[in-house]
């Protein structure tokens, strides 16, 4: 069921304590800042968050971590020059980390959305990130068994939605959006523009509306060239 909601607060209101939440974005590109701010405001806690990184600077996911709402991060690259809130929580033993090679992260998310129960991949074979995992020699290579990552809720940013919930993205802000949209029970999307049904060329739809549950328009959430929000 697709809903168009009036505010980011309404969009995230149903997120419960203890949820697994996927958050789109690679660095700041595609990060749904306004939805994350609303999630912080709504007070949900004890969250498991899936994102490529573990927050940057003093905004978005970094603030959610700072406020102690995240019990576990599943990500590939938590350590950055400005990931001080995650660093502090990790060193204090106040946040759990599941570190996943980035391609495994993407493929495990994709697998969840595609109904795949797991897959074998050479990535990580022989490394400490494959310790304890099943391995097989397949197709001429040693491969490691990886399982899907499902979520209760996905928060992503897209450029435009139409009345059917079909989405298009902008440049490298697409990143995890399409696969996270399919991997959660409930997918919430912030867009900068909602066009009438029929307003998107069906050939160019990136995420079909079947994966989308809630859409909220956030004015000015897609930058024009030259309007740089803090780039790390």
């Amino acid at each position, binding site marked *: 069921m697709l809903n168009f909601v009036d505010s980011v607060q309404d969009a995230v209101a149903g997120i419960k304590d203890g949820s697994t939440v996927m958050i789109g974005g*690679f660095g700041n590109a595609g990060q749904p800042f306004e939805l994350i701010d609303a999630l912080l405001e709504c007070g949900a806690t004890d969250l498991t968050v899936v994102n490529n990184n573990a927050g940057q600077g003093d905004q978005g996911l970094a603030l959610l971590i700072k406020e102690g709402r995240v019990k576990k991060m599943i990500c590939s690259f938590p350590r950055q020059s400005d990931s001080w809130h995650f660093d502090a929580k990790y060193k204090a033993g106040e946040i759990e980390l599941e570190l996943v090679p980035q391609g495994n992260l993407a493929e495990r998310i994709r697998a969840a959305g595609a109904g795949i129960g797991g897959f074998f*991949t050479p*990535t990580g074979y022989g490394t400490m990130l494959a310790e304890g995992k099943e391995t097989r020699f397949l197709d001429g290579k040693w491969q490691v068994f990886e399982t899907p990552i499902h979520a209760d809720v996905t928060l992503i940013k897209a450029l435009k939605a139409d009345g059917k919930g079909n989405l298009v993205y902008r*440049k490298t802000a697409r*990143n995890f959006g399409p696969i996270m949209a399919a991997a959660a029970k409930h997918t919430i999307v912030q867009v900068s523009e909602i066009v009438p049904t029929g307003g998107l060329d069906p050939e160019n739809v990136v995420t079909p509306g079947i994966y989308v549950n809630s859409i909220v328009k956030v004015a000015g959430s897609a930058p024009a060239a030259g309007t740089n929000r803090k780039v790390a």
Partner: protein
Amino acid sequence: MSLTETSLQTSATPLGRDDLARLVAKDIAPGSFVNLGIGQPTLVSNYLTEEQNITLHTENGMLGMGPEAKGDQIDEDLINAGKIPVTELPGASYFHHADSFAIMRGGHLDICVLGAFQVSATGDLANWHTGAPGAIPAVGGAMDLATGAKDVFVMMTLLTREGASKIVESCTYPITGVGCVTRVYTDKGVFLTGSDGVSVRETFGCTLEELQELVPVPLKAAPAAENAT
């Protein structure tokens, strides 16, 4: 010293980062699809020529990446793997993360160029984690690139600040991939790694014998055919 060994020396002095980047760029076959990772290897892009017709891949979902964006070109929706604003070239394409990593993992990339802490005699790569107590591990796409690209080139200084060789018998840092590195470009020479050991394609500012004194694994001169590039 044999003639073969003398002829390996192609520079009177060790190579700086930019000269090394220029050499790597020259060695990339025309028409290749290439990923330059983050950090030092991205310098290679400065020396790729239009005639080479190289397509750059960035793991966050783009083929046809252009040079770093400056001034009004900066767009927060258009960044590279190092989260630095970049530009798009004509013919560029965007795709989601699973597709982007399928490009790596599916063996579609011709070459990736990565930095390293250590490379073993058989081409094991260590470049993601020092393993130091308290260090926060971060892997990103390193394991996917190391495992998936057809050729994995490493760019690094041969020695650590303490003077230890980064080419080692076996890696003491946690590894990124097993037997994946095919070439190592360093300030003191170019090494070819494989199941039959380490050979030296060329040396910079030293002879093969002098290089051997620095590197704790047996080195041999690469066959002449390997010097053709």
